[in-house]
């Protein structure tokens, strides 16, 4: 491959969008009401659209001819390098919103910086994505406030979700070898630079939502190295079902 680091760097961002888009896709038709159902599907569509842009780009970096679908559907579990957060299940609506919120704050900050990438394609994708992600952030942070500062029950459920998912937030800021090489080249974003800003932003909104900030200092990691939670296998089972059952066909 011409540029393995570039490939892996983009793959990391794209896999997050794919797996989160897939998770949100599970909810289509099962939302708390029609309006919210439609809104969540819009977010899923945005994420999958971004995924396609990234995969189409890196498919060209392969020596052999590859397609976006080869990358999306035909890797083994250890080859997906999304963060653990995005593969967490839709336990209840509070989890869906907390997962979205934690991701959106990071995603937005990442896209802001990625616009400045020296890689023109990447910068163009980020410029388009940032408009979508800004909306996701607005949507999820509003919902975090509604649920946090809504009823007693919703407060309890939202706090439960925040506490459960908090341990997955630190992984955003781990740098892989590909990350480091791409930062060096002026293509990638040094996410460690906005780690503090990330937690300030998250805390601000959680506080407004009358929620307490995750207490745990023990964080989980591994997704970026392809060491996933047990949920991942089931996600891939559905995602890859057609491609694995009927290999080498056009759909």
């Amino acid at each position, binding site marked *: 491959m011409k540029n393995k680091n570039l490939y892996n760097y983009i793959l990391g961002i794209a896999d997050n969008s794919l797996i989160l888009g897939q998770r949100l896709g599970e909810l289509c038709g099962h939302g708390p*009401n029609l309006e919210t159902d439609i809104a969540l599907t819009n977010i899923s569509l945005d994420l999958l659209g971004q995924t396609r842009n990234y995969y189409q780009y890196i498919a060209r970096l392969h020596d052999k001819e590859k397609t976006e679908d080869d990358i999306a559907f035909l890797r083994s579990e250890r080859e997906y390098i999304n963060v653990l957060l995005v593969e967490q299940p839709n336990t209840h609506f509070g989890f869906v919103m907390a997962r979205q919120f934690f991701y959106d704050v990071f995603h937005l900050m990442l896209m802001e910086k990625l616009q400045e990438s020296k890689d023109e394609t990447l910068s163009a994708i980020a410029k388009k994505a940032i408009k979508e992600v800004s909306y996701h952030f607005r949507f999820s942070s509003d919902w975090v406030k509604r649920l946090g500062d809504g009823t007693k029950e919703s407060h309890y459920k939202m706090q439960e979700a925040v506490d459960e998912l908090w341990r997955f937030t630190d992984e955003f800021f781990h740098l892989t070898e590909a990350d480091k090489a791409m930062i060096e080249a002026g293509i990638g974003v040094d996410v460690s630079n906005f780690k503090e800003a990330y937690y300030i932003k998250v805390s601000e909104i959680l506080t407004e939502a009358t929620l307490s900030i995750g207490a745990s200092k023990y964080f989980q990691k591994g997704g970026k190295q392809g060491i996933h939670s047990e949920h991942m296998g089931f996600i891939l089972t559905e995602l890859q079902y057609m491609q694995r059952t009927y290999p080498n066909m056009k759909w």
Partner: protein
Amino acid sequence: MKKNWPLWEVFVRSKNGLEHRHFGSLHASDEKMALENARDVYTRRNEGVSIWVVKSIHITATNPKNNGELFEPAKDKIYRHPTFYKLPDELKHM
């Protein structure tokens, strides 16, 4: 009775230069959500550049029962229309 999310009316401006037009309605718990829902429901195909939402209960409407007294009297005031005035054909641009 159990309380439900109120109904809102949605008005969308398709592009600058055009007025906001009534697009339909939806449910939302607050005005922020009403705007967001309106965006997600009614502009999925790039139909708008501006959205207004208003709670349906805030709309005051005429009663069709009174249509006679409200709207009939305007019908015979044909002198408000340009065609009422007979002018020679040679006259252009008036």
